């Protein structure tokens, strides 16, 4: 179990501050084009461009003030909220600019507490793009489920979260949760270990200090355990733990390391 004292946390914060943004992700110079395949991470106020390419369309833009670059974060699986600060982590692609920004893909965003300017801009000359369909969606309850076939071995599942939150994200978490429930049922699992993680190590993004308290890891583990309970996974096989300073995972091929720390890992042992 991770434990960190207030004194240790203060020392870490001070060290980072004195190193003048040691954990800032981008070394890009202002005005220079962002290098392809580079990972960009910053905090900003999102801008909504009101393009119309059907339901749930519309472009989400995020300006990195450090490099004076406007990014298109529309591919994020969850979307920003105007008037609320946004943490962005994404990879620069060469995809065509249809929204008015350098496209980040893959990309994850987190809505942060606080407030900032509400920015909604017209389409101008940008067509936008249709809302990207989720990779996998939950089937209607009326459709029969198929249990996964053997062999049944120890298996890990990952559920990812926004920064600082324990909310299970629609069109991601529910699909994973159902897979877990079906695997537990099919394998007659003896153990389901639910490990909540929080990105407790301090990072600085756009001058903002970001660290998740350990309580968030506990809340994430608890909410996943409750979700499994509601899906019928027997309470007796479920164990919860929570930790800080997690390792990274292969989220999006390992391209989004910081985002991958904000997760719950569920290990099913038949």
């Amino acid at each position: 179990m991770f434990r960190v004292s207030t004194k240790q946390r203060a020392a870490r914060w001070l060290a980072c501050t004195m190193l003048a943004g040691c954990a800032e992700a981008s070394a890009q110079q202002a005005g220079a084009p962002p290098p392809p395949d580079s990972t960009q991470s910053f905090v900003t106020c999102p801008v909504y461009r009101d393009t119309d390419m059907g339901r749930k369309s519309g472009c989400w833009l995020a300006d990195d003030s450090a490099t004076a670059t406007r990014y298109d974060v529309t591919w994020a699986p969850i979307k920003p909220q105007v008037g609320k600060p946004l943490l962005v982590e994404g990879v620069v692609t060469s995809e065509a600019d249809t929204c008015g920004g350098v496209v980040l893909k893959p990309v994850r965003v987190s809505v942060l507490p606080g407030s900032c300017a509400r920015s909604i801009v017209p389409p101008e000359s940008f067509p936008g793009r249709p809302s990207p369909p989720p990779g996998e969606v939950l089937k209607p309850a009326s459709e029969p489920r198929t249990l996964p076939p053997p062999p049944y071995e120890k298996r890990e599942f990952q559920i990812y979260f926004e920064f600082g939150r324990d909310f299970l994200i629609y069109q991601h978490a529910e699909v994973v949760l159902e897979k877990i429930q079906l695997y537990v049922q099919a394998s007659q699992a003896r153990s389901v270990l639910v490990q909540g993680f929080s990105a407790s190590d301090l990072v600085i993004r756009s001058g903002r200090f970001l660290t998740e308290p350990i309580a968030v890891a506990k809340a994430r583990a608890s909410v996943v355990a409750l979700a499994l309970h509601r899906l019928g996974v027997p309470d007796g096989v479920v164990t919860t733990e929570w930790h800080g300073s997690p390792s990274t995972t292969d989220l999006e091929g390992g391209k989004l390391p910081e985002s991958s720390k904000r997760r719950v890992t569920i290990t099913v042992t038949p």
Partner: protein
Amino acid sequence: MSARTWIGVLAIVVVACTGDPPPPVVQAVTLAAVDDARYWAPDEGRTFPARLDYANDAGVLTTLNLAGPTETKGHAFFTPLGNNSRACITCHQPADGMGLSAATANAVWQVRGASDPLFEAIDGSNCPDLPQADAASHSLLLRHGLIRIERPWPPIAADGSRVEPEFTIDVVRDPTRCNRDPSFVSVYRRPRPAANLKYATAIGFAFDPKNGMPLQTDPVTGKPGSGNLLADVRALSLEGQAIDALITHLQLHGQPDPQQLREIVDFENQLYTAQSSHEGAGNLNEAGAQGGPEFLSQAAAGVLQSSANPIWSEFFPWKMLQPPAAGTTDPGFELRQSVARGAALFSTKQFLVSDSAGLTDTGFGNPVRNSCAFCHNMHRVGLDVAPGQVDLGTTNQPFASLPVSRTTAELPLFRLTCARDAAPHPHLGRIVYTSDPGYALTTGRCIDIGKITAQSLRGLAGRAPYFANGAARTLREVIDFYDRRYSIELTDQEKTDLTHLLEVL
């Protein structure tokens, strides 16, 4: 009951038959017949037929009783089971789509005054300790069709456990004078229809994206609840709802008899209600359309609409009607075309949905481009498959003060203050002014303040006024509210088409 005091009722026919096509024309009858047929009082001993047709301003509303004629003498739905003279039927009237219209409340008051069970002091008046013979003491029911709902504070969960709330409640003003005991919160809401319930209880998906959790299990039945019953989801099943209603509205002491409970739920489950004809568009199941309660009773429940399979497509065939011959007019043609346009607009007229907790804070983005069908997405009824707890601004300030919100000044106003360690309301912050905290009265969470469960859109023409707090007097006012709330900028023609659509549901 006197025959001559009913207001606005011109024609009615009661037909006890099943399986036959609906009558083509509403039959004019005398006011005396209207009086006897229209209002169902408890313990009357009438037979509830297989089909009931009642006139309203838009045409005829029909309720089907799929089990066939039902004797009501001694039937639990029609019998006062508690310590007052109320029965379920009191607030769930067939002429009002198994709900209750303000017009019916007025008509009953004109005839019987406070002696009718509808006006029981417990919740048929603004507050029990007001002078009950005075109409002013029942103003919210008479003017807006509102019943008092008294919720415990702090909340008690469906399984009986105590909920630790994230916010405190202060009463800013209270014209009802009924919020003096801090262990209860009195809010005022419209009764919901006790019909078409296979839709309200349908589970489309096992996961509730608004709560970010799988659906809850109902402690009464042990089965997952749809989350689409009651404005604040204080019950998760029809059984749970009936128990709550018997204890609160009928003042039953103790638990209801299981057999009576079963009888109530079985009866509710066999009722389908919908507008069956429109005064301008005629019968709603003609010329390819599939309006009316028959189709409603046969269709699958819990089906999510989509671009490929849009909601209200049962009225799309009216787009293809041949126009009347040159030099002639056909009002029916015009109305049917208008309904078809409204049906299409419902899912295609896009606008920016903004600052609506339950939608715009759950990953869709704020704002998010969508249509009326974003929330009203369940085929045939317009419930929310998800389920539908959303803060549209009907009870929370500042949107509840929009010009069409007619109840604002007559309802209590609460100031809710969220604890510092709680997640605040996503769009209104830590201090929220509201006339009804809605779902938050069940969960105790700040993020749920003002969330009200979306309602079925069937039988609307029979049960004005609208919204959970009766804030819209007419269907046009419902459209106007949304137009202002989301800056949709509907044209007059679009408003008319949408209103016609709502009238034929």
